[in-house]
């Protein structure tokens, strides 16, 4: 498949590096230096020019392109690039936007601006945060099969009940599959006798209820269940959407914003949120407002450093968990090492969302584990799939290590995969696949 990516920013580059192994990728970028860089760092064709220009698009081979992904930092540029591409070709167009108004317009009409798929950075990031907030101890949560299946990644702390248990012992939950253990950056496919140690991260796939139950079990008894008190620091677009989504779940979050005009606007738009106008790094204020009592503190300020500072302050005051927006991808790991419980890069979330459209083999939905260590795929299986017609225990012998069948939905019903389960054509299967065997396995599924 020939894919044209407009804009070689973080998102563009991340998507390009995901795709360059299996697709013909062309990147259009205005900055000549970036073009030069990409030509050497990735196996892609980098074209210098404006992605909204007809001649540049022709030069990039729009006529033969199957897909165009417009992912610059400018909404209007992305929209115009898609509209232009649609006007002269049949390419499937994907646009990334920040402004949710554009997303709403597009959702209303289905194909406004000639865009086939639109992703909204801020909204996706907010949704990811809200999912993480919903599960204590979760580091990452992704929905599959229209929300009937959830994949979640948890960190196991030393005082967690499952620490030092074998997978067989820990597997007390209905409709929950242990897909992987991530240990020191390595993916371990769990067997019954594998031991879960403190410091490990476990990836589980199952029904939302069972994932919630597992999440509750992981956390020591004093803070069970989903959080009540959420404090959002920073009224950025992401902060706003987090508050809005939490309101929709019936919570009354608190949001702290420094700029008085912005605070007023947010207070107008968020009836269920208590908006405070203050400097969130003011420790006295944080203490007075009992930010330390919060179950979760989300920092969504416009600078990574401030988000780190706020997270550390909140942790020191006693906040349950801290989630920080981190714009610089390389900081994510560092910040998590020094005290941020979950660091989230919005562009990574978007790249992930866009990548799922480009997958071959009918994957409906994709989640990336640890950026690129493994993928969780949702597949609607047909007659040709290796999965169909025999019990899972037999299928597994034909597939390499590094593949775990996590969940099955049949006619919108959740089916727990066990050794004797037989998958039928039309089923939706959520599979965990180690990156090592991904290219080998996906075409056969």
């Amino acid at each position: 498949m020939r894919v044209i990516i407009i804009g070689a920013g973080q998102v563009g580059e991340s998507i390009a590096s995901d795709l360059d192994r299996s697709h013909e990728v062309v990147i259009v970028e205005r900055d000549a230096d970036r073009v030069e860089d990409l030509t050497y760092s990735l196996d892609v064709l980098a074209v210098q020019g404006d992605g909204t220009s007809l001649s540049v698009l022709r030069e990039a081979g729009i006529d033969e392109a199957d897909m165009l992904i417009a992912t610059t930092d400018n909404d209007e540029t992305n929209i115009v690039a898609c509209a232009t591409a649609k006007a002269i070709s049949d390419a499937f167009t994907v646009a990334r936007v920040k402004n949710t108004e554009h997303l709403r317009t597009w959702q209303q009409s289905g194909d406004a601006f000639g865009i086939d798929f639109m992703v909204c950075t801020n909204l996706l990031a907010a949704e990811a945060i809200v999912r993480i907030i919903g599960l204590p101890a979760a580091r990452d949560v992704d929905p599959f099969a229209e929300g009937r299946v959830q994949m979640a990644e948890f960190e196991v702390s030393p005082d967690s009940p499952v620490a030092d248990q074998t997978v067989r012992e820990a597997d007390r939950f209905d409709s929950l599959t242990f897909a992987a253990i991530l240990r020191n950056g390595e993916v371990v496919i769990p067997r019954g006798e594998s031991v879960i140690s403190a410091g490990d991260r476990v990836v589980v796939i199952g029904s939302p209820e069972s994932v919630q139950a597992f999440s509750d079990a992981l956390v020591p008894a004093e803070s069970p269940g989903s959080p009540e008190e959420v404090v959002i620091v920073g009224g950025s677009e992401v902060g706003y959407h987090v508050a809005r989504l939490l309101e929709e779940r019936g919570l009354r979050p608190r949001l702290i914003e420094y700029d008085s005009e912005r605070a007023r606007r947010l207070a107008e738009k968020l009836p269920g949120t208590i908006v405070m106008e203050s400097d969130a790094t003011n420790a006295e204020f944080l203490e007075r407002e009992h930010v330390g009592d919060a179950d979760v503190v989300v920092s969504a300020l416009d600078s990574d450093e401030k988000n780190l500072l706020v997270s550390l302050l909140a942790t020191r005051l006693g906040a349950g968990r801290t989630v920080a927006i981190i714009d610089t991808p390389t900081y994510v790991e560092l910040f998590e090492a020094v005290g941020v419980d979950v660091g989230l890069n919005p562009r990574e979330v978007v790249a992930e969302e866009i990548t799922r459209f480009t997958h071959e083999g009918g994957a409906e939905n994709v989640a990336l584990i640890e950026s690129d260590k493994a993928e969780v795929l949702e597949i609607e299986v047909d007659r040709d799939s290796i999965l169909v017609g025999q019990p899972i225990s037999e299928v597994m012998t034909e597939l390499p290590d590094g593949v775990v069948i996590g969940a099955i939905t049949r006619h919108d019903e959740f089916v727990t995969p066990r050794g004797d389960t037989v998958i039928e054509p039309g089923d939706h299967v959520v599979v965990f696949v180690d990156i090592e065997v991904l290219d080998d396995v996906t075409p056969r599924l």
Partner: protein
Amino acid sequence: MHLRVDYRASLSLVGTVLKYLVVPLALPVAVALYYGESVVPFLVTMLVTAAVGTWLERLDPEPDLRAREGFLMVGVTWLAVALVGTIPYLVEAHGIPFLLGPLSPASTLANPVNALFESMSGFSTTGSTVLGDISFETHGRAIMMWRQLTQWLGGMGIVVLAVAILPQLSAGGAQLMDAEAPGPSIEKLTPRIAQTARLLWAAYLGFTVLEILLLYGLHRGGMAPQMDFYNAVAHGLTTMPTGGFSPEARSIEAFSAAAQWVVIPFMVVAGTNFALIWHALADDPRTFLEDTEFHTYLGIVAVLTAILAGLLFSGNGFVAPDAVTAGQTYDAAYVVDAAADHVGDAEPSIRAALFQVLAIVTTTGYASLDFNAWSAPAKYLLLFAMFIGGSAGSTGGGIKIVRWYVILKSLRRELFTTAHPEAVRPVRLGDRALDERAVRGIYAFTLLYFVIFAVATILLGLDAVRVGLDVTVLELVSASATTIGNVGPGFGFLGPMGGFVEFSNASKLLMVVLMWIGRLEILPVLVLLTPEYWKR
């Protein structure tokens, strides 16, 4: 460039409005002709109105109306129509030398101040009366019809009507309607203000006609013997403007329970925002479900009705029988009868409570019984209700429910921000966050309202002492509350079956001013009194 207020332009437009007042005068003329009464009072009025109107209109042949001129025009229009409205009363009481003797020599309206009071009470839809004797023997049916018609014209607003009809008002129409329309701001239903005004008047006319038909239908069906066609029209003309001038001395009490039940929903409608009614009828009935003010309105009416119905049903709503003899202003026999009708009987208790709560909250001012016979808690409940008022954009007077709602919400915010000084909390009306300026304006209005009410109460009291009028505090308080709120009846001798005639001329003139500024919601009138308004 006009740096000063262009009073010529304003007065010219007042003239135009006056000229058109000739048209509605045709109704009392028709009534007079039908009942064989004299048409002279109305012909004289038509003549004077047309002459004065034409003369004023010639002050400025091409009036250019801007915001400042708008205030003047609105304020003066209401004064002018009130003055013109006195002519039929005065002619009726005095006749015309060499041409016509007095038609009703015993009329209290022979006093020009009384005539002005009655006229202003009509146009401002207050419904307080100085008629000594409300009967067709003293006052002809045509004169009474004029009295009721003034309320109907004043209800939706003479200026709104003018905007609807006069093309020269279309440019400044929004300001004009803003100055006149009850409530914090007007809502444009259509891009063109004249069309909005026409829609409002059409809805108003439609409901009036519907009520007349229902009331008369009840009469033809034998369920309301007293409600003949004249009475049906009279009550249709005075319910929708939340006026309350009934041609019956005993107000609605003179009519059957069925007739009272028909009037109740129309009072509800009259106290509702007409823009909301229009949206609900034209677009989506669910608009009602989403409107915060409408919810609050129904909630207030329901709670007050429940309390009052409970009081009446249990007998605690009436004056104690032994107090009846203590030389009070109420009729002892009446109290005994009224209590016998209501205590332990659900339907009359609920009907009386609902009717009276609606009549006061919407400022209609009808009475389905003489609430002077009620006990102190029940009376104070009504006094409290006088300050609530109808919805914004309704024909009701008072402070208005939406203002109370905003004030209570913002007080709650104050409590919250005391504990959390950094909290930013806009005051919300439904989904809409209000601008802080709007909240401030509402505070200013309400404070002014109470200041004027308090000062007026004191002045009325001083004047009562001066002339040796024997009044109670409740009577004094209710007099200023009922006139500035355009409610109508007060307590004691001002009660629903009484009147304001015993006050001195000075007090009555003060109340005329109260009714005037009450109808125009204070600020448009007060601004005329500030030097800044008149300076360049």
